[in-house]
């Protein structure tokens, strides 16, 4: 472990430092924008990004992943800040961190397996839409200058990388900020600047216990927010970890990541920062810029702080239009445009799950609700599909006046009515045999359906016998250990 730790830190020094600087430059506008979304001073998001990035570099489970203040968590804080103020947000951040550490110890990261590809696509699309919507206040009731500046910014962001040589050297979002700021400054255009949005950091962050009364009332105010933040933070962090695992063909420690996110949020809350989590876009930028190790995340956080503390005067005159251009780029880049094309080609159920996830998130501004909805609808579709794998064959033997029903497939809550429907209760026969050795009864609803069938057939005067119930009901036991033993699974599922 120590060997791998050394490799995580020092395996790629040059690449990590360069990538960390690129990420820091991209993080500054985002941290400011997310502070504005949450309704707090820009310094809250900037301190948070510093604290979270630096701490997660040490305690996180995925080397090379970038965590900072994020839109996903900022969206959850809006009403808390509006109703109770910043200090309650800091308290909620600390509590969310504690919950995430607990989640780590409880191995809750394993539930990520319930999140399908459709839910994940829906999550990202919804995030993109919400980030875009958050820019609208800056684009309504403003002079034409703002539209022109934003358009210019977007032009620079997308076209500058095509400029030979320097296009690949300087991050184009930074060039956008510099150029738009210079234009506004020298032409004396009167537009809103970052300085108008609230305080910027002018000192290094200091340790501060959130100024809230320590009582149950406070807890009851912050807890609902903390729970949402903890869940959404872990969701986005674990999704991002999967993306980085895939990109770099390496593995991450998901449990450590959960606990790490918790520690980082506690740290953020205690130096006056808001809650955050891993950022998919920034993490991909990091990998694309050559970042692989923990050093890249540490450099990103540290360089961000140096940048904002020393350049806060310059930062305050940056027009909001430049920032909006950056956030529109983030929004466009986060949205999965292929998913629109795939709406036609993917199975309807997959599309329904994706669209439902997006709708619920955009409606509630809470990514967790969207994910739960997606999981729920996805599971219902799955149950529906499994029900199709069940049928009952029947044969009649004249000599003995016996009707034999052979049940094949999965009998559970969703297929039990269909199961009952296969039996002919009006037929007058002497004997009825129900052969279930090729069936599986997955839950007590399935068993109850069988009971019901037997009782009904008896009432009609037939002698009913069941064959193969032992094999069929083995699936009833919640023997999760079965999954580790192929021969056990073969014994239960064999022949299907």
């Amino acid at each position, binding site marked *: 472990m120590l060997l791998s730790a050394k490799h995580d830190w020092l395996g790629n020094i040059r690449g990590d430092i360069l990538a960390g600087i690129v990420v820091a430059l991209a993080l500054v506008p985002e941290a400011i924008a997310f502070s504005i979304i949450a309704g707090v001073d820009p310094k809250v998001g900037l301190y948070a990004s510093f604290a979270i990035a630096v701490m997660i570099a040490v305690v996180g489970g995925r080397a090379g992943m970038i965590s900072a203040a994020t839109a996903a968590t900022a969206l959850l804080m809006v009403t808390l800040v509006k109703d109770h103020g910043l200090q309650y947000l800091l308290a909620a951040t600390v509590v969310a961190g504690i919950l995430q550490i607990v989640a780590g110890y409880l191995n809750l990261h394993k539930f990520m397996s319930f999140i399908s590809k459709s839910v994940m696509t829906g999550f990202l699309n919804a995030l993109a839409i919400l980030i875009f919507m958050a820019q609208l206040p800056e684009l309504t009731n403003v002079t034409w200058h703002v539209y022109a500046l934003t358009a210019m910014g977007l032009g620079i*962001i997308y076209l500058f990388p095509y400029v030979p040589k320097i296009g690949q050297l300087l991050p*184009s979002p930074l060039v956008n900020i510099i150029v738009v700021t210079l234009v506004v400054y020298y032409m004396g255009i009167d537009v809103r600047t970052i300085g108008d949005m609230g305080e910027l950091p002018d000192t290094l962050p200091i340790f501060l216990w959130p100024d809230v009364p320590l009582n149950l009332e406070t807890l009851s105010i912050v807890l609902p927010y903390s729970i949402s933040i903890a869940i959404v933070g872990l969701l986005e962090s674990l999704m991002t970890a999967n993306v980085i695992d895939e990109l770099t063909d*390496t593995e991450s420690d998901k449990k450590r990541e959960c606990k790490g996110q918790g520690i980082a949020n506690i740290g953020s809350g205690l130096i006056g920062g808001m809650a955050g989590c891993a950022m998919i876009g920034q993490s991909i930028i990091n990998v694309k810029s050559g970042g692989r190790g923990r050093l890249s995340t540490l450099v990103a956080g540290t360089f961000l702080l140096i940048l904002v503390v020393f350049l806060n005067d310059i930062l305050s005159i940056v027009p909001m239009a430049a920032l909006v251009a950056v956030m529109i780029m983030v929004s466009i880049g986060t949205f999965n445009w292929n998913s629109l094309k795939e709406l036609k080609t993917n199975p309807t159920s997959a599309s329904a799950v994706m669209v439902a996830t997006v709708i619920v998130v955009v409606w509630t501004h809470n990514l967790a609700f969207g994910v739960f909805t997606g999981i729920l609808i996805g599971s219902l579709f799955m149950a529906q599909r499994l029900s199709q794998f069940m049928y009952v064959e029947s044969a009649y033997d004249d000599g003995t006046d016996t009707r034999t029903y052979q049940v094949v497939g999965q009998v559970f809550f969703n297929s039990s009515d269909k199961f009952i429907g296969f039996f002919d209760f009006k037929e007058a026969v002497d004997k009825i045999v129900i052969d279930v050795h090729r069936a599986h009864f997955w839950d007590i609803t399935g068993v109850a359906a069988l009971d019901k069938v037997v009782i009904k057939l008896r009432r009609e005067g037939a002698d009913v016998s069941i064959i193969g119930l032992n094999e069929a009901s083995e699936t009833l036991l919640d023997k999760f250990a079965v999954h580790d033993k192929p021969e056990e699974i073969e014994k239960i599922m064999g022949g299907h």
Partner: protein
Amino acid sequence: MTTSTKCLLACIDGSDLSNVVIEHAIWLAKNSQSPVKFLHTIEHSHRTENAHHEGTITPNMKEHLLDELSDEERSESKQLIAEGKVILNNAQKMAEQAGLTDIIAKQRHGTLPETLADLEDEIAMVVLGSKGEDHDGNRKGLGSQLEGAIRAIHSPVFIVKSTAFSEPKKLMFAYNGSPTSKIALEFIKRGTFCTQSLEVHVVSVQKNLADAEQLIEEAKAVLAEGNINITTKALTGDTIDELTAYQQQNNIDTTAMGAFSHGKVHGLIFGSFTTRMLLECSTNFLLIR
């Protein structure tokens, strides 16, 4: 894999020491009549040569990046596999010329420690060089993966430090009565691999002579059961200094000892005795865990 006989696994990477490792492996395989397996590991750098610093989030960025990185790693892999094949062919040829028949060559992806851990069931003994291809030319010092590789498995490990092959003749067994050294004692008693054809020197260094002599008696008794001819020596003083001095006076070519009886944290704080021995003593090593 559990049914096949365990084999002697020689880890080679084309570094300066590789040929010496192969020759030792051949010698050990002949002595023990076990099959020899040559292993070459393919390690990805997981770094990229073409980093893009434009810092924008663009649509389908992940998919594009994934394609780019997997193409890059594919060509890296193909090259490393081809290089490894040459190294393995050379080893196979050397083993055939030496008259061995049961020879296997194997390539696997991953670092040496994780590969050894994966293959542990098939391993009777591992032969590896004290440092790998990344350390060529660096005369002193140990390879960065050495400790991890030794700790990854519980099979005995033969570590080649000598830069040219000469048939092992004299084995110094450093015995201090620790649990791992007792395992080592049993291993030597069994006389598999090299130990039956060597002149075995059992050396014990303790703070006072009486303790050392008692340990020697203990070892003698055990080895007598295995009919191993031994020379013994009880010494006092600094363990590493005394062992190195004894080695030089008696032209010892191989040092056997129990290895890494303490955990990694202990080693980090106090420094590992095994690591210091590996650094100070110029013989080859037979480490037993």
